[in-house]
């Protein structure tokens, strides 16, 4: 299959423009024969929303602009980041990612780990997601994560344990630290996690980060694909927009698991029991 990571720079607070941008990229990716196009976190809205959150929130089942994206996903799959508000949960706004195939929403993940420290204030504006759940796609099982979710490695472990072949992380990660090489120092942090998770979970890791600047903050780009075993398949430019297209062969999951027996020998039941004890102890 062919994956496309859409490293775009959305326009802050302007869904209409961003939907058009998504549709353009989808068409471009379709012409390049991509099967799956992954957009960054809050790609439909921009990141630094603050009080704009409530104005850009939408119901993915019914919103006409979201329907446009679904309509344009005939014969292709896409992951889209948006602010979710359901009619059944009015006033609760989630930082969400939807996996869409052929016009159908296969899964919506709500960001669980909302960074709220230093420059981040997500929990001031967003409700917290409460689940990690992998799901079947036309290309094997996938697990969705949003930005900080990926830095809490338990999240990837859940996807791995429930049979994911592919962990897809959408991100709006700002660059920080200028004492490294040709990229912000924080870019290394994401690559390290991508490499480690693909290695020890023997899965594909697709990481789509955004670029652009909002209120002085530069989003670092550097989206990447790691194949099982920590093999870098491709990385997009730091700082600049790009549509990163890479062919991936999902049989690499099987090949890696023949070589490295982590998955066969994994003991989620033991981990779970131990975790329950640890969690209880933390509560006491």
């Amino acid at each position: 299959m062919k994956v496309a990571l859409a490293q775009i720079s959305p326009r802050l607070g302007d869904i209409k423009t961003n939907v058009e941008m998504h549709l353009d990229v989808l068409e471009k990716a379709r012409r390049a024969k991509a099967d799956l196009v992954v957009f960054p976190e809050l790609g439909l809205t921009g990141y630094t929303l603050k009080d704009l959150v409530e104005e850009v929130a939408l119901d993915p089942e019914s919103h006409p602009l979201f329907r446009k994206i679904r309509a344009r996903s005939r014969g292709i799959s896409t992951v889209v980041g948006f602010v979710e508000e359901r009619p059944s949960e009015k006033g609760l706004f989630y930082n969400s990612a939807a996996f869409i195939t052929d016009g159908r929403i296969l899964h919506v993940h709500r960001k669980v780990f909302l960074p709220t420290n230093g420059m981040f204030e997500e929990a001031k504006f967003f409700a917290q997601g409460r689940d990690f759940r992998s799901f079947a796609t036309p290309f094997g099982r996938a697990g969705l994560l949003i930005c900080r979710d990926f830095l809490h490695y338990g999240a990837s472990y859940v996807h791995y344990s429930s049979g994911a072949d592919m962990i897809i992380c959408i991100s709006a990660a700002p660059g920080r630290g200028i004492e490294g090489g040709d990229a912000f120092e924080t870019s290394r942090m994401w690559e390290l996690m991508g490499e480690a998770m693909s290695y020890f979970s023997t899965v594909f890791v697709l990481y789509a980060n955004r670029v652009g600047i909002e209120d002085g903050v530069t989003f670092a780009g550097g989206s990447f694909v790691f194949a099982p075993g920590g093999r870098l398949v491709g990385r997009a430019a730091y700082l600049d927009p790009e549509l990163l297209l890479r062919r991936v062969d999902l049989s690499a999951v099987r090949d890696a698991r023949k070589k490295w027996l982590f998955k066969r020998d994994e003991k989620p039941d033991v981990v779970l029991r131990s975790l329950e004890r640890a969690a209880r102890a933390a509560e006491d």
Partner: protein
Amino acid sequence: MPPKINPSLVDKVLVRFIRDELGKSGYKKGILGLSGGLDSAVCAALAARALGPQNVLGLIMPYGPGFPEDVRDAERLARRLGIRHKTIDISPQVDPYFAAHPTASRVLRGNKMARERMSILYDYSAREKALILGTSNKTELLIGYGTIHGDMACAVNPMGDLYKTQVRELAAHLGVPAGIRKKAPTAGLWPGQTDEGEIGLTYEELDELLYGLVEQRKCRKEMIEAGHRPAAVNRVVRMIRNSEFKRKLPPIAKLSPRTVGHDFLYPYDWGK
């Protein structure tokens, strides 16, 4: 309309705010520009109560002789409150500039005047060891009806969370003379200019729209459904959106893990 305020409570809170903020910074004295209008009169009255009249200096800074009533109102108010005051004509700072750089734009001229007043206030702030009290109200701040680095510049602002119509209520409570309370609000940019004429809405209409959009968090559509004129709603929404830059420090390009304004975050009252 914004709800009626309890003026004696607001008076108490703002008097304590002025005293506390100046005191924490090690200041006993406050300074402000007196225009002869409502907002600066209210601010001066609060400052006189908070700091004692002898510790408040009102600078009256007319442009030339074109606004004699405003100057007279400002001087009368200062005498009535017992605060110190000083009148400085800003035309010698303004005219040579526009002689060299002529413009027909009244807005450009008005902005320049506001910034000359600001530079005098900051100079006198240092001379007098007095902190500058801001007089921008919530209505002005929300629609951006003020000159950035001009009349919006200050050390502390006791007025910024009161709509204009609420400032009027407070003014009555504080005994601001009816002459000042009743006159048409003006930025004094040119003779005959009024805020309401320039903005295109009365303060009552404006505050009602702002209260719905900001306090009640209503969207544009809800405001129009509630019976407001679409043109007025759209205009106010646009003014709010286009003036956010006046309410923020300029964005700093983030490079390091700790950046002023982004994640180097300390309280304003740090160590005070």
